[in-house]
């Protein structure tokens, strides 16, 4: 905003927008120009009236209670959230342990089946080896038949 004299009410409006409705806060040279403009222009007085209304609304004081009840409420909700978060984490961790145990148990059973199967196969092969000496076949069908004989 330059400090040249006001030529029009538009210049005056520009100063109102730049410095506000309180002419006492305007730069000295503009303040004098503004006062002079107000003396001679109805339009300038209308503009000042509008600016004063704007100032009035902008300056409306809305007080808030500073008795800490809001701070207390926020900290309580935060504490509650933290506790819930901890509880969920613990639950998730416990769930994780259970999943691992279950997987280990399943793997244990599978391993036992494999080992048992291996031992059975070894035993069958060893017996089939004896039969081969007697001129018998060592095909898988023979082994299966031999195994099935235990259940018949």
């Amino acid at each position: 905003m330059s400090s040249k004299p006001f030529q029009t009410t538009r210049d005056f409006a520009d100063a109102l927008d730049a410095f506000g409705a309180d002419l006492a806060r305007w730069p000295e040279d503009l303040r004098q120009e503004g006062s002079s403009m107000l003396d001679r222009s109805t339009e300038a007085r209308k503009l000042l009236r509008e600016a004063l209304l704007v100032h009035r609304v902008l300056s409306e004081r809305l007080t808030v209670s500073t008795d800490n009840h809001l701070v207390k409420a926020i900290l309580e909700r935060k504490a509650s959230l933290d506790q819930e978060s901890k509880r969920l984490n613990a639950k998730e961790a416990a769930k994780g342990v259970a999943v691992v145990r279950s997987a280990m148990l399943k793997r244990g059973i599978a391993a036992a089946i494999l080992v048992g199967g291996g031992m059975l196969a070894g035993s069958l092969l060893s017996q089939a080896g004896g039969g081969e000496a007697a001129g018998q076949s060592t095909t898988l069908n023979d082994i299966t038949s031999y195994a099935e004989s235990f259940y018949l």
Partner: protein
Amino acid sequence: MASPDPSAELTVQGQAVADDPGAVASVSLEQLADEELMRRIRADDEAAYRVLLLRHVYRAQRLALRLLGDRAAAEDAIQDVFLQIWIRRADWQSQDAKFTSWLYRVVYNRSLDIKRKRREAQIDEAYDPPDEAPDAVTRIYRSQVLQRLRGALSQLPEQQYLTLFLHYHEGYSARESAEALGITLQAVESLLKRGRRNLRESLKKEQLNVQQAFPDD
């Protein structure tokens, strides 16, 4: 992480805590910039969170109240905002923005969000300061004009609104506003000017009412 008794933590404000070793740390925390406090909060520092909360909660509440015109709704908005600061502390990027600038924008947007929902729910705002108008008719005109201005105020762009709020409501100088919003002094001056102009021009349709409402001003 959780505080067993949140109200007990309020002693962080600084009084009568000389015998409390924890309070010594809190007092020094109060001297830290917001951005440093946020860095500590990212590392789950609850004392830093309390200092930041106490430092900003009431100004943020006034901003929300100004936008919402309802104390309970403003408190809800501020609770949400400050809880989100804690919940999303890991997402804070100090290089992105000045904390106050970020906070005011979040409060502004959260408040407008609540306001929109309240409008959808057809709830009237309870914001009507006492009027010293001489008679009932003048009070009606006055109320209309002031409501129009308040409506226009809440329609201003975010940066204009925040700059006007800090300047008029919080008494910030242009330089202090520039610091809080992380913008230049020239930008603040320009925002103040455009904000005032926008509000003044919102009265153009109310000329008759302005005359009737404030005949002696």
